[in-house]
């Protein structure tokens, strides 16, 4: 295997090669897109047993209040995200968005209250910009640190709890979006009950020095297989989850992106801390009046996958454009093509038939509820 000198490597890079992974460039990293089992089997294994993903390319950021009071860090971060951070209890995690002055989305992230600091996980492609944004916005009151000494893996699927339970009995006490510290093989890890597959599962932050060891021991379990980026994408698409850069970006707002649930009551109109985040006027305006377009699920009626970038029309002749597909592919668990995209407000009702342009043909797709598979989070 040749190493591409222009790409960064995660602490698990050599392990991927030893497992026979096919590597591809992703967000500046040389990452495994699939292992010898292939995308289809990896996807299905994650849905019936447990899949292990290397997500060490993502950014792990600590925000520590200079005052020592977590409330100060929470209120500072609330200036950058339309999320109720102050109301986030210790040991709990919440999905969030960095917004810009136009109400567009700069990145999506996970925010955890770790008692004396906030712990953030941000997308690999955005992590440098996010770090600058955080330093510029929070440095008066907080110390912002990008952790470069920790790996991050995800263990996802119905057997994930049992697998992790063999190393740490208390895992079964965790609920969806709980975060706890635990020793796995005598290595102190930060474990959250969350993920990006629609399955119950965990994300595990591990000190780099022990990352290969802990990962290899998890992979020794007969229920666990390594899963590449290919299946990670098909799993999250079936689960209706957004991929930053495809389904949400600076041109889409949280309301257009159907992410209203990520804005808790405290930050909405009439809430205790209404607004106060970049783009609040536009975003809260859309909350009240609706947006002109919305992200919806799209279920192609035939067998042909409809990919991101395909244009959508109200009619079978491609005369009336109504939107565009942002993510699409084949859903192995659905056993058919699945997609999502942005559609003009007049055409977003579930069951509406639209037509996607694929290789010069107009293929019928139905507006469909997300997710395409039942989420199995342990709430």
């Amino acid at each position, binding site marked *: 295997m040749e190493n591409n000198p222009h790409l960064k490597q995660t602490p698990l890079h050599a392990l991927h090669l030893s497992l026979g992974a096919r590597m591809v460039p992703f967000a500046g990293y040389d990452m495994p*897109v*699939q292992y010898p089992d*292939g*995308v*289809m*089997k990896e*996807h299905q294994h994650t849905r019936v047993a447990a899949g292990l993903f290397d997500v060490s390319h993502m950014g792990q950021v600590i925000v520590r209040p200079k005052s020592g009071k977590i409330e100060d860090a929470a209120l500072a971060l609330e200036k950058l995200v339309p999320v109720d951070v102050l109301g986030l209890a210790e040991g709990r995690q919440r999905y969030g968005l960095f917004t810009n002055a136009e109400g567009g989305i700069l990145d999506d992230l996970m925010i955890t209250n770790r008692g004396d600091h906030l712990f953030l996980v941000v997308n690999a492609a955005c992590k440098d910009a996010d770090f600058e944004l955080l330093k510029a916005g929070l440095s008066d009151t907080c110390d912002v640190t990008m952790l470069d000494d920790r790996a991050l893996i995800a263990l996802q699927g119905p057997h994930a709890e049992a697998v992790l339970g063999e190393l740490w009995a208390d895992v079964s006490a965790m609920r969806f979006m709980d975060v706890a510290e635990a020793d796995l093989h005598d290595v102190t890890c930060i474990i959250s009950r969350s993920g990006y597959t629609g399955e119950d599962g965990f994300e595990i932050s591990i000190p780099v020095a022990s990352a290969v060891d802990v990962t290899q021991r998890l992979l020794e379990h007969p229920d666990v297989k390594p899963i590449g980026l*290919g*299946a990670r*994408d*098909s799993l999250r698409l079936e689960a209706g989850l957004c991929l930053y850069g495809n389904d949400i970006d600076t041109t889409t707002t949280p309301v257009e992106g159907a992410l209203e649930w990520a804005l808790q009551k405290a930050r909405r109109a009439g809430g205790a801390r209404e607004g106060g985040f970049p783009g609040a006027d536009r975003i809260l305006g859309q909350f009240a009046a609706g947006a002109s377009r919305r992200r919806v699920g799209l279920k192609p009626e035939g*067998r*042909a*996958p409809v*990919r991101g970038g395909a244009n959508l029309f109200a009619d079978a002749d491609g005369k009336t454009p109504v939107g565009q597909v942002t993510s699409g*592919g*084949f859903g*192995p668990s659905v056993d058919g*093509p699945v997609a999502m995209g942005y559609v003009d407000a007049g055409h977003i009702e579930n069951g509406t038939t639209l037509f996607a342009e694929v*290789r010069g043909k107009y293929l019928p797709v139905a507006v469909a509820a997300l997710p395409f598979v039942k989420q199995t989070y342990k709430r």
Partner: protein
Amino acid sequence: MLKFTEEHEWLKIEAGVATVGITEHAAGQLGDLVFVELPETGSNFAKGDSAATVESVKAASDVYCPLDGEIVEVNQAIVDDPSLVNSDPQGAAWFFKLKLANPSDADALLEEAAYKELVA
């Protein structure tokens, strides 16, 4: 006569008609196929035109027409079950039969040994 292209297709040529498919190497690189679109019988293609499309979970790929000619038959079996292309790419999972416009054009294609060297 069995020939190969640098675009990873095989051609079995009998009496001026080439049965065309993709090689084991290509099928392995594409991964599990979930959708196949074939050309219409009677349509004409020039060498290098996209004649068929195959899709894996992740991506769509073109299958190029290896020589000038007319499609005289297509293999519905791989449309009904795209996984056949992964399990038997150089046998039951042929794509189409191409009546060659100039049968002697095939002489310029790769012999099996040269193709194997290409993908080694």
